[in-house]
């Protein structure tokens, strides 16, 4: 498909303000995006990347309301007239669950929705759907029910659904967020392919590792203006990225923390190549972490469980967690990870065996009996918030537990400070961007200082800064004697907080050992900190970030 190079987005002096907001989300953007290029948009939380995609698609202000000034042209005309799909523009929002049509019985129909709405002939639709499924690699999902898909599967179905309508331009907001490592690589390759075929591809993405090899051009926004615009590899290796608050690669961040001069290495391999080959004598780095031997927080004795009428989910799980322990649950979908957390919280009762949570047996108890000394963080925890302020939300659990107001005040102040939420304490949680809303949910659980934390994907969909907060909070809690049991797909979180990993397979624990044995490089990308730690031959358990930075600093000096 030969495309005219002039068919692209042109924004001039573009400014945009959402309704009822005082500040501008975009403030004077001049940008020309070329066909055949993959452009990567990034920036700190609230920098305006999502808004830029919305205005380019014409969806803002037409659907969102708000004031737009300046001009946008797509293919020489104003995009703000009708559904972008009709003009050959594919826009994909950041939360996959919200994007399903709700009218399709299976994935095949879901992908056909766009072409159906465009009124294409039936034969053309069927071949476009088949081709889109093939290119995205989801033929095996064709007969599945859309609402029963996992987040990552949903994301890939949505990309296929847009692809089937043969768009000329792609505006993608965090398309990698729910994907596993293989799917990420596959999507990166697809984006390159689309650009090579002549499409204009624009991706807003917070994770530098996903885009650095895919993008032709990096545009960094800062408070609604273009702060940097250039070659991705060059910018990532420079100092400029750090000043914008945008997240860079783990390797570049480590190198910066260790004081490497620019241009810095931006991949783990490049980082390691700068290190001396010999093992270094590093004081302090080889200190083994103390054995966890605090009071018992959770104990499962030969626990069996199956949902009503279903096959067994857990078949004899025995497990003990002492205070200070941080343990990860790993395994495929359906291995029984969530069920295990639910049993610990008395949301389910074992069919055989016993569960002791803190000092209580869960039999005959419900979750409200274990609160507030046990904290349970669900997936999408922001959907449980209902108070009119962040502080009010944090007061819910202590109020239900009967704490007096002075104690509540002290506890909320402390937890809000810990998670960096004091400046928004009086804001409505729903006015905060999603990552901070998730932090509010975490704060509302940590506020009562639970001695056992049950966490289900605590860092999903968080930006770099918010993830650091969560990691710091979890480490602080284990240091204070709480035990943590977490389900996670986030390698950085796993390596930096967990000290033991349990691998579940078909309802049994098949492995109990170091995180790095269980979380292989295939299922989740290893952070550069871990790769460097392994290279340096640090003791197991010493793959913590600061220790690696110390070693790198020392290595640099030698």
């Amino acid at each position, binding site marked *: 498909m030969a495309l005219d190079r002039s068919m692209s987005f042109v924004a001039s002096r573009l400014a945009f303000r*959402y*309704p*009822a*907001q005082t500040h501008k989300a975009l403030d004077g953007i001049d940008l020309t995006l070329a066909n055949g290029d993959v452009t990567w948009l990034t920036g700190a939380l609230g920098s305006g990347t999502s808004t830029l995609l919305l205005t380019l698609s014409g969806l803002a202000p037409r*659907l*969102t*309301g708000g004031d737009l000034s300046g001009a946008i042209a797509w293919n020489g005309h104003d995009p703000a007239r009708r559904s972008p799909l009709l003009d050959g523009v594919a826009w994909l929002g950041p939360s996959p669950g919200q994007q399903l049509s*709700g009218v399709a019985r299976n994935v095949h129909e879901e992908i056909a929705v766009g072409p159906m709405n465009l009124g294409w002939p039936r034969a053309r639709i069927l071949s476009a759907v088949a081709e889109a499924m093939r290119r995205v690699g989801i033929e095996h999902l064709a007969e599945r029910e859309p609402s029963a898909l996992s987040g990552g599967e949903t994301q890939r179905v949505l990309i296929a659904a847009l692809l089937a309508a043969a768009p000329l331009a792609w505006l993608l907001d965090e398309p990698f967020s729910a994907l596993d490592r293989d799917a990420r690589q596959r999507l990166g390759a697809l984006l390159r392919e689309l650009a090579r075929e002549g499409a204009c591809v624009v991706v807003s993405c917070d994770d530098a590792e996903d885009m650095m090899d895919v993008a032709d051009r990096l545009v960094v926004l800062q408070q609604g203006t273009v702060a940097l615009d250039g070659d991705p590899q060059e910018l990532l290796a420079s100092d400029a990225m750090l000043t914008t608050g945008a997240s860079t690669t783990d390797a570049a961040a480590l190198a910066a923390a260790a004081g490497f001069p620019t241009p810095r290495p931006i991949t783990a391999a490049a980082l390691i190549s700068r290190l001396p080959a010999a093992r270094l004598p590093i004081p302090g780095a080889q200190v083994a972490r103390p054995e966890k031997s605090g009071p018992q927080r959770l104990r499962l004795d030969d626990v069996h469980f199956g949902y009503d009428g279903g096959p067994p989910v857990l078949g004899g799980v025995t497990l003990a967690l002492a205070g200070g322990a941080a343990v990860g649950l790993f395994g495929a979908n359906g291995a029984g990870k969530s069920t295990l957390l639910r049993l610990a919280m008395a949301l389910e009762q074992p069919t055989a065996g016993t569960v002791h949570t803190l000092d209580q047996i869960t039999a005959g108890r419900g979750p409200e009996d274990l609160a507030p000394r046990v904290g349970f963080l669900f997936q999408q925890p922001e959907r449980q918030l209902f108070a*009119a302020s962040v502080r009010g939300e944090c007061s819910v659990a202590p109020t239900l537990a009967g704490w007096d107001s002075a104690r509540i005040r002290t506890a909320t102040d402390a937890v809000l400070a810990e998670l960096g939420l004091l400046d928004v304490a009086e804001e*409505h*949680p*729903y*006015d905060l961007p999603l990552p901070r809303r998730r932090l509010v949910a975490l704060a509302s659980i940590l506020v009562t200082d639970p001695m056992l934390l049950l966490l289900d994907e605590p860092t999903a969909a968080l930006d770099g800064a918010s993830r650091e907060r969560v990691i710091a909070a979890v480490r602080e809690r284990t240091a204070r004697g709480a035990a943590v049991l977490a389900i996670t797909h986030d390698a950085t979180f796993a390596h930096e907080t967990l000290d033991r990993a349990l691998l579940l397979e078909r309802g049994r624990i098949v492995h109990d050992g170091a995180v790095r044995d269980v979380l292989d490089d295939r299922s989740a990308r290893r952070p550069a900190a871990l790769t460097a730690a392994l290279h340096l031959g640090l003791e197991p358990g010493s793959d913590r970030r600061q220790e690696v930075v110390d070693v790198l600093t020392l290595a640099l000096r030698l």
Partner: protein
Amino acid sequence: MSPRLFALVPAAVAINLVVGRIAAELSLPVYLDTLGTMLVAVLTGLPGGVLVGTVSQLLAGMLSGYQWLPFVVIQWLIALLAALAASRGGFATPFRSAIWGAGCGVLCGLVSAVISFVLFRGVTAGGVSAIGALLRGLGLPLSTAVTSASLLTDILDKTVAFLVVGALLRALPRRILGRFPVAARAVGR
């Protein structure tokens, strides 16, 4: 129909259904099965509310039989009164919400008593008819028993519903208020 109504109407109908189920699960003496209708009427105006009410009643028909379809009039009445209350600052305080709710309850109670008496001779589903039967057993004439039962349940239900919606509206995030400017007027801002 605007894209926003395409998104809001199914959600609001689902809210009617699901919140009604929550009230039943908590064994509360109220139905709370019109919150979605009220919210959409308050935030987007009467037509949206009427649409939500109508679709809700059609869906309820699929689940419990189409004989109750005439009660769709009650849904429209609630949409009308919620929209009216919103335009007059009727949700500004709990007190004002309760007054508007009680007023709505009286009107809804009277209209549903007429429907119930004329079309069903006082026997419809649920607790209203049980209360009606009780009053009838105490010796009240059928029309009086049906009307009193309807009024009693509807005043309580609508007062609580208006109180709940008022509490929600007064504590809406700025981001929703910005998108639905009417909500600010509803709470007297």
